């Protein structure tokens, strides 16, 4: 079967599992799941060649809702798991799903070094500016004045700027999407997965339960008016000066992905297991 035939033969539904999502009705993550399955179908990848890795949080439920291989890892460590997987099984397509709490706070350090290392995988962060699963604590991207019972008067803290940090740390592809535009998001995910190296896609995905104000995002997002650049300085200026609702591919770098030389296994696993015997 040719790659075109393979692509036409794949339908988004082929990548959905039988498990029904338990996100709140209205949650942006439903659309992100749709974008994942549409992107996989467009790429025509066999589901057994894709691995969706996640950490903890509402967004991190996503591996269960696809019928690809999945790994629902520990909080903030999805990138470490995914990096290990990709360097040892480079033939697999590795997509990592996270949220702004999991990815930027608990997993913040892994984020920096995954960008720097530039392993060929795609990191998708569903950013809703809140910890949704644990009932609405401020996350690193929460606005300083966001005032709730859990953050009286707001945190007063400057929000984290994930795209700038990704660029400065060496990510090879940077994009911002909005969950409410699943076709556009799927198209960006296709580009991100195809692009060599570490691709970072931030998806603004409203939390309708703890941030009902984010329903307004639909009217605030707008398409990036210019094509993606491979010049980090231009990209930095664009990302630093935009309003946070600029949607599209913002940076497409040409750094060579990190591919460590993996030799044949030199350790006998049964010998190794003996070391850990209690």
């Amino acid at each position: 079967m040719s790659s075109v035939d393979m692509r036409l033969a794949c339908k988004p539904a082929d990548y959905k599992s039988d498990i029904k999502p338990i996100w709140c009705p209205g949650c942006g993550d439903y659309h992100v799941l749709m974008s994942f399955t549409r992107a996989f179908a467009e790429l025509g990848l066999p589901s057994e060649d894709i691995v969706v890795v996640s950490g903890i949080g509402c967004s991190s439920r996503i591996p269960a809702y696809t019928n690809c291989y999945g790994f629902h890892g520990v909080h903030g460590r999805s990138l470490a798991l995914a990096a290990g997987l990709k360097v040892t099984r480079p033939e697999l397509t590795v997509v990592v799903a996270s949220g702004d709490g999991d990815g930027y706070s608990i997993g913040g350090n892994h984020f920096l070094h995954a960008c720097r290392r530039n392993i060929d995988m795609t990191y998708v962060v569903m950013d809703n500016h809140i910890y949704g699963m644990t009932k609405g604590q401020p996350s690193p991207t929460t606005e300083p004045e966001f005032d709730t019972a859990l953050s009286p008067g707001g945190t007063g803290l400057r929000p984290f700027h994930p795209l700038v940090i990704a660029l400065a740390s060496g990510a090879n592809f940077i994009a911002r999407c909005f969950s409410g535009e699943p076709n556009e998001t799927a198209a960006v995910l296709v580009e991100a997965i195809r692009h060599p190296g570490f691709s970072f896609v931030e998806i603004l995905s409203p939390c309708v339960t703890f941030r009902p104000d984010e329903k307004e995002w639909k009217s605030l997002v707008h398409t990036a008016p210019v094509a993606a650049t491979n010049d980090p300085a231009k990209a930095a200026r664009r990302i630093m000066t935009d309003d946070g609702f600029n949607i599209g591919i913002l940076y497409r770098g040409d750094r060579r992905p990190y591919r460590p030389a993996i030799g044949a296994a030199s350790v006998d696993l049964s010998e190794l297991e003996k070391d850990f015997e209690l």
Partner: protein
Amino acid sequence: MSSAAEAPKVATVADLLAVAYQIEADAVDRYDLLADQMETHNNPELVRVFRDLARAEGIHRDEIRRLAGDIDVAAHAQRVAKWQRGESPEQVNLGEAHYLMTPWHALQLALVGEQHALAYFESVVATAKDAGVKKMAEEFVEEEAEHVNLVHRLLRKYPEPPDSWSVDDDPPSQQE
């Protein structure tokens, strides 16, 4: 909804049937997804409403498949029924869903979807160069206009709920 410029290009009757088929198929998927959400969140009345809407769209989808005869509209749709921006017209906005939503809200979503489909087929009529495409698109316009009227008639049975419809004294998720 996408603008006419971003909607799929329709050059032949087969293209039009494929796009019409995809619009209805997408609507079935979307209503079923909303019904699943309502099932998970224990809103049985809305489960019934969304399943009924999915069934109705499924009947339209199957009618288009019959109308297409030997043309494999599902396969052709994979090639031609692609929206550059936005989604196909009857894919109602999932962001508007709420676990306490009422039949009135569901019908409002359905109404928007039908109006978008009507506008889409009207745009095909306005721009069609092929006489066969124009004639069939006019039939779809008539059909979608009837669907819009049907939703309006159903809305008479389900008046707008009071502003307090989303108030929940014991919500499943709240800050403590």
